[in-house]
């Protein structure tokens, strides 16, 4: 630590606890309470990074979230390293390791800096313009551009830290703990409102807490002392929650806000362990008070980006709050009074101020007079035309401004300095206000956008509302808060306030230089390296909208979202284009206000908690029996059960053969099950399915097809009539939730007169499907007293039965075309019954099969899978399922759409079977089908929807949708693949057992 850069009398930094940290590999020291930025400055390190485009040396410029330059990489661990963090926001802790970004091989010697010499030929949108041709070279260009443009390195391993989410409800949320925020929070709390005060810093009080100046006094105390006392009284309120290190990220409609609380980022490495790192607060506030303060503007002049050029108010904070001198010979450059506060602070801490360069003609405000009294030299009506020093500023060139401010006149004065404070006035932090939908208005007198209208119950107070002077802040805060909270609080009403008032104002968005504009580098966006020249170029090239200029020049598009100099960009655009700033408007401020970590956004929803996993009651059995699983929606379904080294194809071939030769067992628990009851249940089914239901006998099952109102197939499944007014509907696995919602919708909104109740019972029952010629024998072993004769228990019927005294429903239904049964049993018993069935089936080589075999078996029978063979454009007629459309019913969902002019077209895509000429050739699902091979371009007639090698038929089979397919049966078609063309023939969709003999085998 360079000792002479620290001052000793400081209230905020504990100079007894020394902390060691590393920056770019070098061990340095700071104190508890420092930020990385203040500690670096105390070590006389200004150069911390290279700029994005030109790789110019850049230094710390600010002291908070608005910092554009001091962007560093924190940590080295592959799972914990964090890029793009602002050194001004990192609290120093023992063991901190940080490094510069965007430079190679080092920040002091950066190869990319060659760009700076080429900068005249790298104008705005250089990349867009240069790398346009030839178009297919972009891939190559992109590789190099991305490589050279990278900002920081992302971690390569999963984050080990813990993050958290919490909800917070309050009457009043105060965002920002500066003087107005403190007054607001106290007033709210005093009036028994449940109040929350958040601030992104570790200490409350904003900038007033270190404002110890004769020109700013409250009730005869320095404003910092007065505020300190106010803050101390806050602890007595039980209904006031204070959260420091908490930054508001987003302000959404209906006063819903997101805030990120840093819990361990400031702790020493060994204290961080096993603690929650950051918490995202989801806040719903009845009323919101925004007191986020203002950001000091830089000034736009030639070479205004050198390390050592710092916002004047930040220099003040570094000296008054952190006790750090940003330099030994500091010059200041301003267009307003606030730089004089800095000058006085520096002076009283023993730092010599070379001079203040002020663009104004002269002014006599209280604070300026005080500065003059202290002997501080002022260059009135002057500007800085250039700065010198490559890696650190070492001199400034001062010239007099012409009367109209557009040029410089007279002799150039050279002034040596090691730091330059700049102040271009103040920009209210209106970001959150506009995020919430608030509209801004432009105030001409000092060129600021201030909050105007809002739809929400909220208010902006203090400098974010455009009040920059102490007496105004206090007076207006009191009035606004009392009105907003509908309270009468006199505690702040008769304060005696001394406040210097700014008398003269002058603003020049782009300061002139003695060189022509094209030969200068007046930076606007320090992080994205865009200059005033770029903005002017964009205007010349025809960009008029501020949103377009922003994107073309990338001004304001860096991680700081242009917090510092968006206003200058607007000013220069307005001036150049000759429009009023109020009419030009601003770009949109979007959340997050400051970057959020992914960890904070995701919270606890990582790993197994990322998404819900649904498991069937028999899941453990499948795991024990080495099943491979497939995700179907949130369900884990057994996909196939490989034996030894079988691959999927081999396993599926074996399972499929076994199921048809003897017996197979499938876990069908995931199918959606909806319990339907009520006196109008039959009528309801008539309306939602295409076929008729009134005459379905009790104890019988029926397959149903459900359409959307547009006539397209939506879902299908078997529904069983359990009693007169009681049905059990099954849906597809993936469609269960949507079907229930859709049915509820119709019941509640279109047919409220129907007496029908729907209950989802998907999770209540496990479903065991046993199929194959020996299935009957297995069921008779499991339930000996059940009459399984075709007469008593025919296909498409159901029986109640007991298995080990447990009630179950047995449906004789089949999705494979085999004689088969489905046992529905309470979930908690499903695994034991499954095991019982498996045991009973061992004599018959019962083979567990998964979803893949199920798909193969049904494809052999030409049964569709809604969602695989249909895609929301298939009518039942397209599926060749005309038989399921009731001609008698007056209406059902989708009926009218079945004879719209488009749905009755005969050349629609229709479902057909496909056989490959070579029976061993298996088509790819999704492959396109054409009628000709030697034509280009050729019409795509359709595509393959399902394709398998059938072990039972010993040939490849496929289902496909083809234009006009019904009429093309027997026709030859072609499936062109990458390196061959497969010859196919269109067939019927049923490949196996067309007479359905196996159902009763």
């Amino acid at each position, binding site marked *: 630590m360079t000792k002479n850069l620290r001052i000793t009398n400081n209230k905020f930094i504990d100079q007894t606890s020394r902390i060691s940290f590393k920056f770019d590999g070098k061990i340095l020291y700071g104190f508890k309470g420092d930020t990385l930025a203040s500690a670096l400055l105390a070590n006389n390190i200004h150069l911390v990074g290279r700029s994005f485009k030109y790789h110019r040396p850049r230094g710390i410029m600010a002291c908070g979230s608005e910092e554009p330059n001091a962007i560093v990489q924190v940590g080295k661990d592959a799972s914990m390293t964090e890029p793009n963090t602002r050194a001004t926001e990192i609290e120093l802790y023992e063991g901190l390791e940080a490094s510069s970004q965007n430079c190679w091989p080092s920040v002091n010697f950066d190869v990319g800096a060659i760009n700076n010499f080429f900068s005249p030929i790298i104008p705005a949108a250089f990349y867009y313009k240069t790398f346009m041709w030839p178009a297919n070279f972009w891939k190559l260009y992109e590789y190099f551009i991305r490589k050279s443009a990278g900002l920081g390195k992302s971690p390569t391993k999963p984050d080990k830290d813990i993050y958290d989410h919490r909800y917070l409800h309050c009457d009043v949320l105060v965002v920002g703990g500066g003087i107005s925020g403190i007054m607001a929070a106290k007033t709210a709390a005093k009036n028994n409102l449940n109040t929350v005060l958040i601030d992104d810093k570790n200490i409350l009080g904003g900038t007033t807490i270190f404002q110890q100046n004769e020109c700013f006094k409250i009730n005869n105390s320095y404003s910092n002392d007065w505020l300190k006392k106010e803050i101390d009284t806050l602890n007595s309120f039980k209904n006031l929650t204070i959260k420091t290190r908490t930054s508001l990220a987003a302000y959404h409609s*209906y006063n*819903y806000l997101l805030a990120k609380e840093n819990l361990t980022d400031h702790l020493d490495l060994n204290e961080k362990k096993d603690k929650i790192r950051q918490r995202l607060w989801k806040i719903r506030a009845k009323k919101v008070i925004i007191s986020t303060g203002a950001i000091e503007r830089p000034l736009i002049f030639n070479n205004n980006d050198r390390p050592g050029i710092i916002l004047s108010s930040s220099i003040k904070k570094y000296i008054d709050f952190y006790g750090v001198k940003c330099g030994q010979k500091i010059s200041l450059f301003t267009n307003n009074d606030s730089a004089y506060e800095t000058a006085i602070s520096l002076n009283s801490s023993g730092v010599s101020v070379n001079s203040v360069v002020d663009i104004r003609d002269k002014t006599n405000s209280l604070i300026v007079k005080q500065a003059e009294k202290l002997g501080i030299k002022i260059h009135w009506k002057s500007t800085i035309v250039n700065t010198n020093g490559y890696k650190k500023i070492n001199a400034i060139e001062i010239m007099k401004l012409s009367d109209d401010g557009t040029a410089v006149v007279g002799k150039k004065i050279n002034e040596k300095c090691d730091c330059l404070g700049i102040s271009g006035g103040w920009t209210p932090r209106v970001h959150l206000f506009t995020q919430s939908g608030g509209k801004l208005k432009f105030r001409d007198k000092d060129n600021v956008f201030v909050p105007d209208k809002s739809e929400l119950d909220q208010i902006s107070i203090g400098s974010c509302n455009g009040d920059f002077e102490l007496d105004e802040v206090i007076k207006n805060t009191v009035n606004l808060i009392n009105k907003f909270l509908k309270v009468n609080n006199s505690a702040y009403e008769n304060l005696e306030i001394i406040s210097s008032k700014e008398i003269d104002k002058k603003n020049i968005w782009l300061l002139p230089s003695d060189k022509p504009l094209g030969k200068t580098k007046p930076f606007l966006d320090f992080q994205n390296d865009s200059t005033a020249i770029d903005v002017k170029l964009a205007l010349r090239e025809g960009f008029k909208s501020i949103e377009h200029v922003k994107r073309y020049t990338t001004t304001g598009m860096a991680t700081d979202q242009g917090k510092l100099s968006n206003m200058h960009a607007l000013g220069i655009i307005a001036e150049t284009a000759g429009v009023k700033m109020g009419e030009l408007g601003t770009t949109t401020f979007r959340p997050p206000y400051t970057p959020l970590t992914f960890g904070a956004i995701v919270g606890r929803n990582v790993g197994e908690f990322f998404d819900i996993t649904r498991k069937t009651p028999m899941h453990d059995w499948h795991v024990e029996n080495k099943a491979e699983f497939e995700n179907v929606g949130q369900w884990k379904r057994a996909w196939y059960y490989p034996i030894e080294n079988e691959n999927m194809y081999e396993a599926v071939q074996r399972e499929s053969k076994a199921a048809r030769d003897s017996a197979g067992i499938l876990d069908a628990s995931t199918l959606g099950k909806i319990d339907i009851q009520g006196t109008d249940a039959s009528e309801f089914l008539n309306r939602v399915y295409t076929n008729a239901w009134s005459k379905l006998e009790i104890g019988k099952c029926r397959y149903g097809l459900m359409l959307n109102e547009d006539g397209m197939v939506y879902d299908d499944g078997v529904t069983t009539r359990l009693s007169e007014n009681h049905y059990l509907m099954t849906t597809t696995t993936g469609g269960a939730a949507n079907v229930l*919602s859709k049915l509820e*919708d119709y019941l509640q909104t279109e047919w*409220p007169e129907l007496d029908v109740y729907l209950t989802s019972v998907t999770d209540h029952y496990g479903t065991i499907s046993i199929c194959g010629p020996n299935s009957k024998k297995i069921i008779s072993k499991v339930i000996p007293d059940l009459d399984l004769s075709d007469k008593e228990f025919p296909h498409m019927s159901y029986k109640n039965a007991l298995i080990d005294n447990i009630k179950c429903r047995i449906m004789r239904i089949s999705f494979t075309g085999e004689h088969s049964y489905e046992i529905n049993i309470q979930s908690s018993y499903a695994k034991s019954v499954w095991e019982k069935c498996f045991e009973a089936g061992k004599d018959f080589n019962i083979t567990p099969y998964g979803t893949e075999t199920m798909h193969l078996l049904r494809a052999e029978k030409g049964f569709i899978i809604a969602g695989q063979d249909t895609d929301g454009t298939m009518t039942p007629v397209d599926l060749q399922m005309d038989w399921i459309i009731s001609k008698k019913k007056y209406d059902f969902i989708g009926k*009218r*759409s079945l004879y719209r002019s488009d749905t009755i077209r005969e050349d629609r895509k229709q479902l057909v079977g496909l056989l490959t000429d070579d029976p061993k050739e298996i088509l790819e699902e999704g492959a396109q089908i054409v009628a000709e091979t030697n034509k280009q371009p050729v019409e795509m007639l359709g595509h393959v929807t399902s394709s398998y090698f059938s072990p039972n038929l010993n040939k490849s089979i496929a289902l496909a949708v083809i234009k006009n397919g019904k009429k093309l049966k027997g026709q030859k078609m072609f499936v062109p693949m990458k390196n061959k063309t497969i010859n196919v023939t269109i067939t019927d969709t049923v490949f196996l057992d067309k007479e359905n003999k196996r159902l009763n085998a």
Partner: protein
Amino acid sequence: MFLINCPYCGERDQSEFTAGGEAHIVRPKQPTELSDDQWAEFLFMRKNIKGVQLERWNHSHGCRKWFNMVRDTSNDRIHAVYKMGQKPPIE
């Protein structure tokens, strides 16, 4: 993120709800008697107003009830919620 006053449950976060499009589009009682154009009017045509709009909402992660909402799409202000079958509380 809206705060929606479900007519059955009270104020709840928007994440509990699903929007269901324009309200008061009644399914025709005699679809078969409609021309293609008339049916298409019911099936496809929606207003998508900038301004005050009547909408269907479902408290899908709550009571599962459908209800209607009067919402200004230009500023997201919810003027009223009312039950299915009731008349909108504004003109």
